């Protein structure tokens, strides 16, 4: 049981990192008023780009950097389409995901056979030796790759950025009311570009983490829908970094659990009361595929709850999300 729990936690932490990175980026983008449904595509390009760079140069960090760059490049397309050309953000995002998927599968075919040693798992400096000894959670949390730690660090950084810096304040304002922000002298276009590019960079980083730390491989479509989960996660977190972290672990835990639930026999002994009713129900609820629906269902419920409340409570959703902004061209 203990080993099960420890293994579960380890997998949770690993799964959460991807979600944290991609989710943070999407959170920043959406706070600025732009919906980016191309996260999945950007993650894939980051994964492939990072993988290729690492194979060619032998450096993990160069690969990670390359992954970020790939994400940014794809995000630039989305930004140009949505911000400059005022195209529909949804269509552009879906298109980018298709493009990212297609491009990486197409050009990545040559790299499928290869594998590398990913980022090594390390413990934090100085105190690492002690932290790892903590029962149950020690190994899971404190023996991870550098990118895992990076993701954790970026959460408070992201929070600080949005709430305690002028740039963050301005970014939040353009997501709420771009017209007002414009009147106050803030450059809506430039800031939105920045937000989208940051989001792309984070998504690329998430993808690079997948291929460079999580698995050490490149497989077409390896993100397996994690980009979509990240989008759902941002909504589930009601656009707050602290809740994003909790949500990432929650979704990560769900993911880790459902892959392991088969090995854990959760059924009650046939003799115990209600076993006949409860066992099939529990079986159903812990079925891996059924569990796969939970993040999405939870998000729909949270979104409906957020939106359906009275006007003043609707503050959670960035007011100008999905609305293209144009200065009146007269």
């Amino acid at each position, binding site marked *: 049981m203990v080993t099960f729990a420890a293994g579960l936690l380890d997998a949770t932490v690993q799964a959460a990192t991807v979600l944290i990175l991609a989710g943070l980026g999407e959170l920043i983008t959406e706070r600025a008023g732009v919906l980016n449904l191309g996260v999945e595509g950007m993650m894939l390009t980051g994964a492939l780009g990072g993988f290729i760079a690492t194979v060619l140069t032998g450096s993990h960090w160069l690969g990670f950097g390359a992954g970020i760059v790939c994400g940014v490049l794809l995000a630039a397309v989305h930004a140009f389409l949505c911000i400059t050309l005022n195209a*529909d953000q949804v*269509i552009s995002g879906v298109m980018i995901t298709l493009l990212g998927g297609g491009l990486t599968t197409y*050009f990545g075919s040559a790299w499928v056979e290869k594998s590398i040693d990913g980022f090594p798992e390390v413990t934090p400096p100085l105190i690492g030796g002690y932290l790892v000894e903590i029962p149950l959670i020690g190994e899971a949390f404190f023996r991870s790759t550098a990118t895992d730690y990076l993701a954790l660090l970026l959460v408070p950084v992201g929070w600080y950025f949005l709430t305690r810096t002028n740039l963050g304040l301005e970014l939040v304002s353009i997501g709420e009311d771009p017209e007002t922000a414009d009147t106050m002298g803030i450059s809506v276009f430039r800031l939105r570009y920045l937000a989208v590019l940051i989001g792309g960079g984070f998504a690329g980083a998430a993808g690079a983490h997948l291929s460079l730390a999580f698995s050490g491989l490149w497989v077409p479509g390896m993100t397996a*829908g994690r980009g979509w989960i990240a989008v759902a996660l941002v909504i589930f977190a009601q656009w707050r970094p602290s809740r994003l972290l909790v949500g990432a672990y929650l979704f990560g835990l769900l993911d880790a659990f459902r892959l392991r639930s088969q090995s854990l026999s959760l059924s009650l002994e046939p003799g115990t009361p209600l076993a006949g009713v409860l066992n099939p129900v529990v079986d159903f609820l812990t*079925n891996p595929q059924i569990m*796969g629906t939970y993040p999405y269902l939870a*998000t729909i419920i949270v979104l409906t709850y957020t939106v*359906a409340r009275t006007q003043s409570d609707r503050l959670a959703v960035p007011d100008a999300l999905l609305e293209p902004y144009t200065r009146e061209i007269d």
Partner: protein
Amino acid sequence: MVRIDLTAREHVPRWLGYATPVVTVLLALACGAIALLALGVSPLAAYWTMFGETLLSTFGRTQTLIKAVPLILAGLAVYLPLRAGLFNIGAEGQLVFGAVAGAWIGLNVNLPGVLLLPLMFVAAGTAGAFLAGIPAWLRARWDVNEIITSLLLTFVALQIQSYLVRGPMQDPTGNFPHTAQLSAAATIPEAIFNVHAGLVVAIAAVAVTYVGVRKTALGFEITFVGANDAAARQAGMSRGKIYLLVFVIGGAFAGLAGISEIAGLQGRLRAGFEPGYGFTAIPIALLGRSSAGNVMLAGLFFALLFVGGSSMSVAYGVPAALVEILQALIILFLITAEFFKRYQVDIEFDRAVSASTGGEA
């Protein structure tokens, strides 16, 4: 100095509206050519195989028509809500739901084919409609964004399908994630052009949609709500009713797409049977946004892309992902074209640097 002037067009010239789809496709193909060259393949040869050879061979044409069935129906599933100003990205999930429901009936109900098949279609349509009804209701009731909800429900549906084919609906002989083969009674027979009767259903759906939208009072309302829902409300039209209706019917179409693919072509329900038809439906609906007939044409074109794409990939060793890339590029150029339709771009080269500030725009 290059100066770029943007002026909003007052009236979009008709020719621009027609030329746009054609030009976008050509541009996308041009970009795809670059990807082909990158792999050392001659674009002309590859495209010829993709389009020309496919159309010239009976087999190619038949395959295209078969492929077109779910694409056309899914395209309609996105097209109809679009008319009312809504975005149904969940066609994929509705399609899968329909396939599941229809297959279940096909596997578990014992009736002669002439009764069983219609029942399967009805079940499929109902299941798709039900799934689509959820985002529609949330939008009508609480103004919850239907894009997000329909998208998320797609993933839910995919997971449920995955569960079913590995569990309750799994073929008992063996441990594969698929159902048993559908019986002959539950298989859609060939009807026209050597294609199963699903094609008839698709054509009928196009006709019904066309007539419905263009020629009925309901279609009038749908069009009006999509154009200006505030004015529509003032005129007494019910926005909530229309929203529900277009999504439910769209979902039903998607469900039909699912079952026709299973019972007409694949013969059994597998995990991951649908290669993204629901998402492909989006560019199809965009290309064909002006009428159901155009949706059909767009669906045929994309079917050609798919079929030609796989034969090209076999012939030249090019990953089939090129088709995905082409799809994405078509969307890309489509939405870029939207911009050029709305604004007139004048590019001027100023040689002299004028001392005075120019006159007011």
